[in-house]
């Protein structure tokens, strides 16, 4: 029938828009990796960089101490893993934010505002300062991540229980998150003061969210965990859509809401822990990116999740590039730039939304 055809066409273009958005974001992400390698303390031309990359991939090895050897080291060992990690972290944090917002039906949920990042950070501080870990014994392997995971789960549990007791209004959740962040920050401060100056400086620098210490060996675990996490969440996206309808409707459609919530939040905590371990706390990505994405392509989680991943990666990488551009001596961390971008947007979101939403 004619209406049916028209509907089909409309639906196709509707979906098509979303797919194009995701595709464009994905392509931009790849291009941006290539461009970001240009920025940094050392002055290298773009042509030279690509020449080095190509030669490295085809297996040329340089003699130690030559100019090319040093340039190759900088480009391949320092800048490239940093760009890749930025994409992974941005994607992971954005997807965590998007899913948290669906699962808790709270447009202001994100790893940072709910205090989960602070908890993970405290776990890392425990591993670094006290040396107490559950598994493994170094920071670049599972030891630190498991610690961070354990301490990221605590805020998560608090938030779930609190939102059931006191109501799940966005404001309440945020206030609880602020309180939890405050508690964990105090605990971390306590630990920091018990250690000597150099450890304290290390923990402090790392708390803020900087990609300076990212190398190739910090990539495998976060990449693996976040990749698997995003795929799993994508597979669960249909159920997430149902959750968004409301608990009663969801239950009547046969979905075990509690189980679903807990599983999602566990996956999210794991992803966040793996990222926080290597770069500290970077806020606002999980909060702001899903809102922007939803404003463009609506709230179907099938598309919101991949789109958030792509856009999140781009935004964090851009923030890192800006940080490197502004301070070639690598003084300003990416997390600061990110909060500089994200906080005003957050304020804007609150002020401009209609009253009923809150």
């Amino acid at each position, binding site marked *: 029938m004619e209406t049916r055809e028209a509907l089909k066409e409309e639906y196709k273009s509707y979906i098509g828009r979303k797919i194009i958005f995701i595709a464009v974001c994905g392509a931009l992400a790849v291009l941006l990796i290539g461009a970001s390698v240009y920025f940094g303390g050392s002055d290298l031309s773009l042509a030279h960089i690509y020449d080095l990359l190509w030669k490295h991939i085809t297996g040329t090895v340089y003699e130690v101490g030559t100019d090319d050897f040093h340039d190759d080291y*900088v480009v391949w060992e320092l800048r490239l893993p940093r760009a890749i990690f930025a994409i992974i972290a941005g994607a992971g944090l954005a997807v965590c934010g998007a899913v948290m917002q669906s699962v808790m039906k709270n447009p202001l949920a994100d790893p940072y505002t709910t205090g989960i990042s602070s908890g993970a950070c405290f776990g890392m501080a425990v591993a670094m300062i006290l040396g107490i870990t559950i598994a493994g014994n170094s920071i670049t392997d599972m030891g630190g991540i498991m610690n961070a995971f354990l301490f990221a789960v605590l805020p998560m549990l608090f938030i779930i229980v609190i939102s059931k007791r006191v109501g799940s209004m966005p404001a309440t959740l945020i206030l609880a998150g602020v309180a939890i962040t405050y508690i964990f920050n105090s605990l971390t401060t306590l630990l920091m003061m018990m250690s000597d100056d150099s450890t304290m400086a290390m923990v402090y620098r790392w708390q803020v969210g900087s990609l300076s210490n990212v190398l190739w060996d910090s990539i495998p675990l976060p990449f693996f965990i976040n990749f698997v996490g995003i795929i799993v969440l994508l597979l669960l996206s249909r159920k997430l859509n149902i959750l968004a309808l409301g608990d009663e409707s969801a239950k009547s459609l046969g979905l075990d809401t509690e189980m679903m919530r807990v599983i999602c939040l566990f996956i999210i905590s794991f992803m966040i822990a793996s990222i926080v371990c290597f770069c500290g706390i970077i806020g606002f990505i999980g909060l702001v990116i899903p809102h922007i994405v939803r404003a463009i392509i609506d709230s179907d989680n099938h598309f919101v999740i991949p789109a958030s991943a792509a856009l999140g990666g781009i935004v964090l990488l851009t923030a890192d590039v800006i940080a490197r551009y502004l301070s070639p001596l690598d003084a300003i961390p990416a997390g600061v730039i990110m909060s500089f971008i994200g906080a005003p947007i957050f304020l804007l979101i609150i002020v401009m939304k209609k009253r009923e939403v809150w």
Partner: protein
Amino acid sequence: MANEVIVMNTKVIALVVVVIVVAAGAVGAAALLNNKGSNEKYYAIDGALNVYGNADGDYKIDGNDLSVIQDVIDGKKRFAHYPLADANLDGKVDSADKDLVNKIINKESCTINIINQKKTAGNYNSSVKWPVKSAIATGSSNNLLLFTFAGINEYVHGICYSTTPDWVLFPYYKDVTKLANSSTAISIDAANDTIKEYNVTALISDYTDSTISNESEYNKNGIDVIRVSAAVTDPDKYASQLLMLGFLFGTETKALEFAEWNTKVLKEIGDKVATIADANKKTVVTSNSAASTKGVWLSAGVSDYRAVMEQAGGVYAIGDDYDIYAVSGYTSGAYFKKGDTWLYQPDVNPDYIISMRVSTWYSGTVDVKDLWEKSVSAFDESEAYTNKHVYVMTGDAPITIRIAYAAAILYPDVFTMDWANGLNKEVFEKFYPADINPEGKSFVISYDDYTAAKAAAA
């Protein structure tokens, strides 16, 4: 007959005496000539060159080390007693070690191994491509002083610092590229241009563990990391630092001369301090920072600043049995601000409070009132302050000079200020390439100086 005997005996005796004198002269001349070449001077220092290959543990690598290695190979000496004999760090002493030492003696390029120190983590070994011709460094004032005295300035092409050094003291470094805004970390990316331009092969850093935490990255990039402790007060340890740099960069002579002078002066001070009776010793605390809201940092425990005071003969008021950790949560000191009271307790209450500050002392443009207030006004309720036993002194001067000034403050009858000023002048005249004359400038601010400055400003 008797006369003839006596005359003959006298002649014989004279002949014998002449023969003995000539023989002695010959032996003496031979001994002098045999003394390892007529250009070799003997330096009166005890510090050791901490490089593998320096088997006998003295201040240089020479033929003596070869003989020691040969003795170990032959089994006459035990390897465990001469750990530095294993020049190539392969775990055994053999001819390969001798070859390496020979290369060093002949000044050929090779890769040597040195001992690096880390404050908490302890010593570890590092390999260095030798001789080093070009380096970058972390630029604290103490480091820059060490570099100047070791004569290696022209080889350093990039430094990092958070507080700007006094360019009057380090005019060479004014034009050197700044690599980072912190004194503890240099990003390889930021340093890359300098590394390429000057073919840098080494990075000189200090012995704090947190400095240059990306050391393994530098090693992968082909840069060797050398750690020095530029603020040690012990003459032998300081000599080791000078020897290390002198050896690595080929400026041994200069380094040795300064090491010798330094050891001599510190020994003089030590001897004089030993003449002071225990009952007359004064207690002292020292700080090196300005007051922030957290307060002034008072060093304690293991601290280079404390060591300066102790070498000057002071007894540190925050003793090792005092639980500073319980007061401040740090093991190396504590903050003290105006509201605090722990310093006044009878078991701490120091006789003297001396603050060592970095400022423009050598330009003679120190703002006396401002520096005093920022450094020691937090202590104005202490007994030391009421007795006018509080001082602010220079923290830029070479370590030995700081010790001299501290000694002059604490024991004015044994060490005079003129003597300390004289040493200050002497060290710059003899060993410093830049034209710096400390004469006429003041390096110690006393309470009276402060009141005078305050009155003048009003």
